């Protein structure tokens, strides 16, 4: 974990409100593990607006070029600032943050991503297939603005399936439709998922009937990102109730069945 400046190599719009930023960071290439995240300062030096850093996953790592990429949606001030940066500009980031996932015994893996939730999963798909695991990557999108990513998916040594609500890409529908039949096509798969709250809640209900281990990568508003402020609390079931765990330093991955959604 280091606090570093990095030079942007590329920052391109790849769909409505969707950008991919690539920056030069040998350090992250070497030290970043799937499941972790970084924290980017989204305002010019010395200015306070926006004030806090923003957490982002690493979408891809190109070891040959010492370049890592962040896939991000423009939501508010911070991501709007990022989208205005150009090749040659600097960002200040801290990472890797959070806990790496352990893929040790993962032979068959189902990745379920909703919207920008695919961001951390892509790198996982790459690593997992690279170590010989059978990977099935299930993605759900509201609109087809993610469509240009198809070329990235094609490059993966993995099967994938796209659900898109606007019917412009892949199957029409939402990602949980995959489980509509009621029977578990992925019985011996380890499952990783990341996406909107509603998706995670549905998946929790669906998998409550199955025996899969399901790991969810959670999001919560963060102030410090390093386990100090207790801001990013989520409720995790414990005997006799729950405990607050920190997404940034206890997570961001948790056993989906243990998560108590608000």
């Amino acid at each position, binding site marked *: *974990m280091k*606090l570093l400046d990095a030079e942007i190599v590329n920052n391109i719009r790849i769909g409505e409100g969707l950008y991919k930023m690539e920056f030069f960071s040998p350090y992250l290439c070497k030290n970043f593990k799937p499941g972790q995240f970084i924290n980017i*300062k989204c305002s010019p030096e*010395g200015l*306070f*607006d*926006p*004030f*806090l*850093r923003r957490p982002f996953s690493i979408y891809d790592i190109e070891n040959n070029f010492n370049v890592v990429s962040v896939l991000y949606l423009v939501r508010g001030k911070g991501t709007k600032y990022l989208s205005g940066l150009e090749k040659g500009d600097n960002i200040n980031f*801290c990472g890797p943050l959070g806990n790496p996932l352990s893929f040790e015994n993962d032979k068959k893996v189902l990745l379920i991503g909703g919207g920008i939730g695919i961001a951390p999963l892509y790198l996982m798909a790459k690593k997992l297939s690279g170590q010989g695991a059978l990977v099935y990557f299930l993605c759900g999108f509201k609109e087809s603005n993610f469509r240009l990513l198809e070329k990235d998916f094609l490059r993966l040594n993995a099967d994938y399936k796209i659900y898109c609500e606007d019917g412009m890409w892949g199957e029409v529908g939402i990602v949980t439709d995959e489980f509509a039949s009621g029977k578990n096509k992925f019985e011996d798969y380890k499952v990783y998922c990341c996406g909107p709250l509603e998706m995670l809640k549905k998946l929790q209900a669906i998998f409550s009937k199955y025996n899969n281990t399901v790991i969810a990568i959670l999001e*919560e*508003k*963060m*102030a*410090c*990102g*390093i*386990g*100090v*402020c*207790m*801001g*990013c*609390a*989520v*409720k995790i079931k414990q005997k006799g109730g729950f*405990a*607050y765990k920190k997404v940034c330093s206890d997570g961001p991955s948790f056993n989906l069945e243990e998560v108590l959604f*608000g």
Partner: protein
Amino acid sequence: MVKEKGPNLKVNLGTIELDNPVITCSGTFSSGLEYGKFYDISKLGAVTTKSFSLKPKKGNEPPRTCEVACGLLNSIGLQNDGINSFKKDHLPYIKKLNIRVILSIFGQDIAEFRKIAKEIVDIRQDIIALELNLSCPNVEKGGMAFCTSTDDIKNITHEVKQITKIPVIVKLSPNVGDLSMPAISAREGGADAISLINTVIGAAFDIDSFKPKLGNIQGGLSGPAVKPIAIANVYNLYKENILPIIGMGGIYSWEDAVEFMIAGAKAIGLGSVNFVNYMAGIEILENIKKYLTSKNITDINSIIGRASDKIKR
């Protein structure tokens, strides 16, 4: 080559001696472990711990933070593992990292403060001061109530000091209007110093869901937005010469830190800035040194409260 002697940075807050005035604020630095990965935090004047209560506290319903213009609202709700966790889990690494530590504590009533005090008698060599958090706006019983009762402030301060024999800092909230009375009560109770300011009560609502942006509805505002409020409080209490002041609230740069000292703070606390710039502590310390050197100031104490000299009224 002979190393040039830098300016004197030592400051005293009553009986509390600090090698330099840069300390960290409670709740924004845990007990230092995380920041120790970024720089040598033993170089700081002191580290103030998260506030500990007698028993573990779960904290408030999420969401617990919300960014606002030039700052943030938080309603952490004083989540902590209890004073014994401090002794067992934090103190060992604090000693290893060689940190000068100020232990922040809070209780719901005098009885709880008394019990906490008793728990720390045996570690009193390991901490340079106690900070009594009598001010956190997030907890309905604890904090706020005390600030308004000057008797409570006095009695708690007195008892804690009697029991522990550790120097005591009383942390005040800006949410009660004039802070002179609480400060005077702290002095009467035997406090060595006061810390100000704690966060300012604030709230935010979402215009789509109509819901509060904090699980606890209200929270505490911190960050650069509150700096002018904090500076005014420091300046006013310095003029009244009640107790030495640790100034905090919105410090982001070394310039801010110096501004607090000019206004009257003997030491300065870094809070939210730690979330944005993990190196803030050491950077601000180094830059204060440079500032003093560039101005040929040999003793940092000579700038403390300088604003008041400049004002003829």
